[in-house]
């Protein structure tokens, strides 16, 4: 829908989200590109039985991973949803730190059998989401051949090599982060804060974006747009520069 809903409250932007939803969380799993304010609002909504889809999922809060020194006291990651048992399942590529001395809330939930974890190679995770957004129901990849990723998957020999069949991944909601939006939902990203945001924007029924500021489409460079507005439903920002 070309009409976009613009919010200044993160809470308002997500208040109709429901139990049992599947929710993609954008970024890479570091500070930059993560929709941190939307995540905090979602946690406070206290839903249950969620399926989360993210990349690096619960590392920062136990190791400081990917957060600036100056923000070390504000670290938030996807493990916030596990403390109060809001999550049924998480699909990600990197849910635990390498050391066993630092258990994340996600690993604790897994150990206590409160949440299921599905671990997918990062490139396959990205490609599954990209496929989900672009009408490709399944694709073949070499990634994971000969490993436990192969388990119970169809495979095919193509030009003498073995490949695994992987299916598209979609969700009910995507919470993403961009630098700037215009009122048409066109998004500009900054640096390495692209990561999973542009593909997740395409793969859900409802895409909600947190932006540093919203400006008029007259003031946005069309050549810089990373996500065309067609993929965006709701825009939240504390910094509305629309005239």
């Amino acid at each position: 829908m070309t009409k976009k809903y613009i919010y200044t409250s993160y809470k308002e932007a997500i208040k109709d989200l429901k139990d049992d939803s599947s929710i993609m969380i954008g970024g890479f799993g570091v500070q930059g590109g993560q929709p941190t304010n939307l995540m905090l609002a979602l946690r406070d909504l206290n839903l249950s039985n969620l399926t989360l889809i993210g990349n690096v999922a619960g590392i920062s809060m136990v190791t400081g991973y990917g957060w600036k020194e100056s923000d070390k006291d504000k670290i938030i990651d996807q493990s916030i949803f596990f403390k109060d048992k809001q999550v049924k399942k998480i699909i990600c590529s990197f849910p635990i730190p390498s050391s066993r001395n630092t258990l994340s809330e996600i690993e604790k939930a897994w150990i206590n059998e409160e949440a299921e974890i599905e671990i997918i190679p990062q490139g396959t995770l990205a490609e599954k989401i990209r496929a989900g957004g672009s009408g490709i129901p399944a694709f073949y990849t070499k990634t994971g051949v000969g490993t436990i990723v192969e388990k119970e998957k169809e495979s095919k020999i193509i030009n003498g090599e073995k490949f695994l069949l992987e299916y598209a991944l979609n969700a009910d909601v995507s919470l993403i982060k961009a630098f700037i939006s215009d009122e048409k939902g066109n998004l500009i990203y900054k640096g390495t804060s692209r990561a999973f945001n542009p593909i997740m924007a395409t793969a859900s029924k409802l895409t909600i974006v947190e932006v540093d500021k919203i400006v008029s489409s007259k003031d946005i460079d069309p050549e810089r747009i990373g996500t065309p507005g067609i993929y965006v439903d709701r825009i939240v920002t504390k910094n509305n520069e629309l005239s």
Partner: protein
Amino acid sequence: MSYPKKLNKEDIAFRASLELPSDSYVNLGIGMPSLCAKYLQKEKNITFQAENGILGFNEISKEDEQDENLIDAGGQFLVKAPGMSFFDSAESFGMIRGNHLDMTVLGALQVSEKGDLANWMIKDRGIGSIGGAMDLVVGAKEVIVTMDHVTKENKPKILKECDFPLTGINCVNKIITDIAVIIVEDQGLILTEIAEGWSTEQVQSLTEPKLIVSNKLIRYITK
């Protein structure tokens, strides 16, 4: 058996840095592999890729100049450099899986004599982080492993068969450890370099599969 002194992380990183081909695109794994960048010979004209979506970075930023939008996959904050480019995760792994990278340097828990790699899950933990490693080992033209030769319990990490869950099969080209450099070939593992003070027998005693000693065996190259 008592053994001579082993090399340290910096030595391994220096040795691995020598592997990076001139005019190449390289992805360095988290931890020890990323130390390589420190020893980079500038004239080699190497461009680094990180799977979070960046090509062309060089320096780590100072603590008080960190930019949250400029980071590598290991969580290190970077400094802007001319000719950098950014891309999303689907494009980043298209680049990786599509065979566009010349080399990746990765850490390892175990490597088999066939070049199988296990680097993402400790066996008895039952859970681990795959990250981008499975894509990197199938996608990069050459895979270099850097690791300690044995575990903290002094058990070999170079094995006939890995017993930890695999990252990839038949994918490792060269193993650089704190006592040796070993090339994975069809006929087996070729020992090509050995640390100061070590004998081939001593290296063999810490390695499960039979090593083939290269007739060009040399001293492990250090700074």
